[in-house]
C-alpha cells in the first residue's frame, strides 16, 4: 500500500501526454502529501514507535539548543572551570577550583576532574554522539546500497564476488574489526566515523540486493527497459526509490548500533581530544575513579543518556520496519 509505482507520467518518455511542467510538480507534491498523511495515520497507531519518536525529538532539541542555551547563559560553558562555593566561572588551574564536586542544586550532576560542569557537558555531548552515529550510518548505507544495487541488478560473477565480500563483513565480529581498523588509521573523529561505517554496511547490501532482485522482475521495470532506458537510470530512478523505505528503516536501526559502538570506542580513548561524546564522558569518569570517589551520577548519567537515545532509535526503527516491511505488516 505504501510503495505503488508512481501514477504520474515520468518525464519525457510520456510523449504528448506530459502535462505542463508546473502541474506535474503539483501532482507530485500532492501525491507526496497524501502518502505522508497516510503514513502518519498508520505510524500514529504504533505506540512504541511514537515513544521512540518523542525520545528522539527531545534529544534533537538538546543537540540543537546547546549553543543557544550556552550563549544565553542558561547552560554553563562545557569547557570552563568552576570555582568557589557558588560555582562561578574561573580560569583553569585556579586555587579554589571545585573538582569532583558531588551533585547539588548549583551543578546538577557535579563537576569533573577539571572542575567542569558535568550537566552541561552531558547536554553538549548529545550533539557529537548523534552526529557520529548518523554520519557513520549514512556512509555505511551508501556503501551498502551501491553494493546491493550493483550486485542485484548486474548479477553474474560480479554478484558472486560482491556477495562473498559481504558475507565476510556480515559474520565479522564488528567490534574486533573496528578496533583493529582504528589501530591502523589512528584515533580521531573522522577515523571513528570511517571505522564504524566500514563495519556495518553488509546487512544493508544484502537487504538492497534482495529488494532489487524482486523489483527488477516487476512490470514497471520491464516497461522502462522496453522504452530503452539505460541501466543506471533504471537502477536509480525506478528501483532505488522503491527500495528506499526499507533502507531507511534499516538506517534508523543502524544508528542505534553505531552509537553503541562509538561509545565503547570513545571509552577506550579513540576519540579526538576536546570532542565531547557520552562515551568520552564515561571514559573520563571511569579514568578519574568516579567509582571509588562515589560520584555515581557522573558515570551513570551519560550511560542513561546513551540508553535513552539508542532506545529511541531502536523503537522508531522497529516501528518503521513493521510498517514498511510487507513481510511483517500483517502482524
Amino acid at each position: 500500500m505504501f510503495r505503488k509505482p508512481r501514477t504520474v507520467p515520468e518525464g519525457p518518455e510520456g510523449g504528448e501526454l506530459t502535462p505542463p511542467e508546473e502541474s506535474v510538480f503539483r501532482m507530485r507534491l500532492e501525491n507526496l502529501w497524501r502518502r505522508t498523511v497516510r503514513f502518519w495515520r498508520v505510524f500514529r497507531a504504533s505506540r512504541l514507535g511514537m515513544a521512540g519518536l518523542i525520545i528522539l525529538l527531545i534529544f534533537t532539541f538538546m543537540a540543537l539548543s546547546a549553543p543557544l542555551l550556552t550563549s544565553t547563559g542558561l547552560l554553563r560553558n562545557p569547557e570552563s572551570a568552576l570555582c568557589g562555593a557558588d560555582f562561578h566561572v574561573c580560569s583553569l588551574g585556579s586555587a579554589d577550583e571545585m573538582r569532583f564536586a558531588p551533585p547539588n542544586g548549583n551543578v546538577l550532576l557535579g563537576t569533573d576532574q577539571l572542575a567542569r560542569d558535568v550537566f552541561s557537558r552531558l547536554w553538549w555531548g548529545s550533539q557529537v554522539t548523534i552526529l557520529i552515529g548518523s554520519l557513520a550510518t549514512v556512509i555505511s548505507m551508501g556503501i551498502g546500497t551501491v553494493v546491493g544495487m550493483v550486485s542485484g541488478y548486474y548479477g553474474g560473477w560480479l554478484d558472486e564476488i560482491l556477495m562473498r565480500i559481504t558475507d565476510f563483513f556480515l559474520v565479522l565480529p564488528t567490534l574486533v574489526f573496528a578496533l583493529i581498523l582504528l589501530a591502523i588509521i589512528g584515533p580521531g573523529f573522522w577515523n571513528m566515523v570511517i571505522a564504524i561505517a566500514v563495519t556495518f554496511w553488509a546487512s544493508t547490501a544484502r537487504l538492497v540486493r534482495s529488494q532489487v532482485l524482486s523489483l527488477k522482475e516487476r512490470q514497471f521495470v520491464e516497461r522502462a527497459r522496453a522504452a530503452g532506458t539505460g541501466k543506471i537510470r533504471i537502477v536509480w530512478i525506478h528501483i532505488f526509490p522503491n527500495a528506499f523505505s526499507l533502507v531507511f528503516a534499516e538506517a534508523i536501526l543502524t544508528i542505534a548500533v553505531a552509537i553503541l559502538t562509538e561509545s565503547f570506542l570513545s571509552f577506550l580513548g579513540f576519540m579526538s581530544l576536546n570532542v565531547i561524546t557520552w562515551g568520552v564522558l564515561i571514559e573520563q569518569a571511569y579514568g578519574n575513579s568516579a567509582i571509588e570517589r562515589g560520584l555515581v551520577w557522573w558515570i551513570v548519567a551519560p550511560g542513561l543518556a546513551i540508553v535513552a537515545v539508542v532506545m529511541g532509535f531502536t523503537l522508531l526503527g522497529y516501528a518503521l520496519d513493521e510498517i514498511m516491511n510487507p513481510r511483517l505488516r500483517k502482524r
Partner: protein
Amino acid sequence: MSMRTVLVRKTTNAAITIVIILILNFILFRLMPGDPARLFLSGSHSTSEDIVARQREIFGLNDPPLIQVEKYLVNTFTGNWGYSFFQQDRLVVNILAERAVWTIILVGTSTLLTLWLGMLIGAAQAWRRGKTYDVASLGVWFFFYAMPTYWLGIVFILILTAMSPGIDLYHNMPKPIPTDLWGQFTGGVQHWIVPALTLTLVQLAGISIIMRNSLIDVLTEDYIMTARAKGLSDRTILRRHAVPNARLPMVTIIALNLGWVLGGAIQVETIFSYEGLGELTVTSVENGDYPLMQGLFLLITISVVVANLISDFVYAWLDPRVRLE
C-alpha cells in the same frame, strides 16, 4: 536444490570467506603505522640502525612480496604465529590458547543461559501477546538491548561495591591464585558470575525478542488450531507443538550472533579485567602488539565463520523438512 548442493555451496562460501580473511590479515597488518622492527626493539636498550636492519631481516620484511606471502601462508598453517612483542616474548599461539579457555567459559555459559532463559521469556510473552506482561517485558528488554555492555558492567560494579565494600570483582581468579583445586573452582565461579550475568542480560534482550516473534509466527499456523481442536491443554500445545518449531531458527541466530556476542565479551572483559581474548584484543591494540593482534584477528574471525558453517549443518540435521528433502 537438494540438501547436498546447499551444504556444498555453504562450505565453498565459508572456504572463500576464510581466503578473504587470510588475504586481509596479510594486507591489514602491513598497513599498520610504524616499523614493526623498530616497535619490537623499542623496549630494549639499543635501537641502533644496524640492529633495526637485522631485526627487519629476521621478520622477513626485506624479502620480495611473493616470498613474504609464501612464508605467511606456511607459518599460518603450521601454527607458527610468531612471538608477542610485549608479553615477555611468549609465543602468540600459547597466549591465545591460554586466553581462549576463559573466553569460551564466559561466552559459552552465558550463551547457554541466554538460550534457556530467552526461550522461557519469549514463550511467556508470545503466549500473552499484547497483554500487559508482553508489553511491559518488551519495554524492559528494549531497555537492556539499548544498553552499552561495558556501562552495564560498570553499573554492576557500582551496585555491588555499594552493597558490600571491598568485594573483589576483577580478574578471572582471586589473587593470589588459590593452590587447592576446590579453592580455584569456587574462586573462579565467584569471579565468573558478574561478567557472565552482564553478558547474559545484554544477549537475552535480543534473543527473547526474536524468540517471541518466532513463536508468534508459529502460533498462527493451522496445526496449532488442530491441536487445540483435539482438546490438548495449552501447556502441551506450547511445549510439544509450538516451541520445538519456534526454537529451530535459534540455531542459526546463535551462530550469526557470535560475532556480536564476542563484541560484548570484549566490553565485559575490559571492564572486569577478565583475562580472556577480548581483554587481550584491547591491550594488544593499545600496545601496538602486531603479532598478537594478527593472531587474534585470525582466530576470532575464522572461528566465527566455522561456527556459522557448523550451525548450517546442525540446522539441516535438526529440521526434518530440510533433512528429508
